[in-house]
């Protein structure tokens, strides 16, 4: 998130508010990939995320009149996307949909192509094992924890930015992120070492 991009966003918002349809279109083209990515991570389902992206941008279009131009467009857009993701997750639960991770690929397949990767060496197996552990752990996180975890660990938002997006105190962001991280760490293979070859003990067990 940098200042120049924010200024361009403000120009596009202004253009939209002046009645020029290229304003909204510009915002959509600039941010659709990012919003789509965050929705994939929150919803853990690509098809769902695509549909949600469309709905989020419709909400953005309808709400642009009320956007406070002194704020950041992307923070505002993240807020809309996050609230929409929460709504969808709740609706899923009501409908008792079974698998949240439906078409998100398995850890042994390539997310880009969906094709299985050929078996590789020990390093690849370890990587797949870690990927599987993370996916399961993230899926099992409480919705509120997963959203904070996604915004921080994947979208690289700071504590303050997450607080602004979600409209919650920074202290709440910190505690949720702490618990989410710990659960993900606990789900990792016991002998996995981020810095090198497998060890027999984790750092905290030494």
């Amino acid at each position, binding site marked *: 998130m940098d200042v120049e991009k924010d200024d361009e966003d403000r120009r596009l918002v202004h253009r939209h508010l002046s009645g020029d349809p290229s304003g909204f279109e510009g915002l959509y083209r600039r941010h659709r990939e990012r919003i789509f990515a965050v929705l994939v991570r929150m919803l853990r389902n690509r098809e769902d995320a695509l549909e949600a992206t469309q709905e989020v941008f419709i909400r953005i*279009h309808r709400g642009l009149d009320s956007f406070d131009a002194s704020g950041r467009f992307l923070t505002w857009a993240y807020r809309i996307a996050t609230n929409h993701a929460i709504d969808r997750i709740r609706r899923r639960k009501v409908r008792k949909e079974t698998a949240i991770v439906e078409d998100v690929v398995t850890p042994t397949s390539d997310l880009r192509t969906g094709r299985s990767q050929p078996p590789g060496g020990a390093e690849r197996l370890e990587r797949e094992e870690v990927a599987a552990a993370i996916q399961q752990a993230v899926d099992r996180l409480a919705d509120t924890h997963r959203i904070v975890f996604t915004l921080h660990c994947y979208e690289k938002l700071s504590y303050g930015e997450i607080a602004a997006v979600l409209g919650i105190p920074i*202290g709440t962001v910190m*505690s949720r992120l702490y618990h989410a991280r710990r659960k993900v760490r606990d789900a990792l293979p016991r002998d996995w070492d981020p810095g090198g070859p497998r060890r027999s003990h984790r750092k905290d067990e030494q």
Partner: protein
Amino acid sequence: MTPLSDLQRFQELVEASAHRELTDVETAFIGRSGFRSAECRQWLETDAETVAAAIEADPLGEVPAATPLDWARVDAGLRKAGALADSKSPTRTTWPLLPAAAALILCIGVIYAIQRDGLSTTLHSAPEVIAEVLDLPDGDGSLILHEGDDEGVLMIILSNG
């Protein structure tokens, strides 16, 4: 309160937040200490490095871009909702160009006529410049500019039909 007791309280409250709703004061304490105290921050981010390294192995770390076909579907939905302009209909920005072009051509015609004949008060020798914007059916808008005097007629026709 010593820094150590701050850290202890910080740890206690963060751990407690997993089991109960914290008060506003307690939440504010976590936020404040998490920023001000290096010890608290360090403890808060104990797992950050390990998790960040593990995330690099997660396929969701890199979400594949949606395909052009995917975006075409989203675009269609946005057009239907009125958020995006319909690509089949002329955009609003196209038509305002026509009057501007007409005015420009008119000016050029007048300047050309003045340069050729000079300024004169006699009406009979004044060049005649006529611009017509025809209100033709949608998609067939035309602009015809013709300039005439005794020596002949210059006619420019612009059409997007």
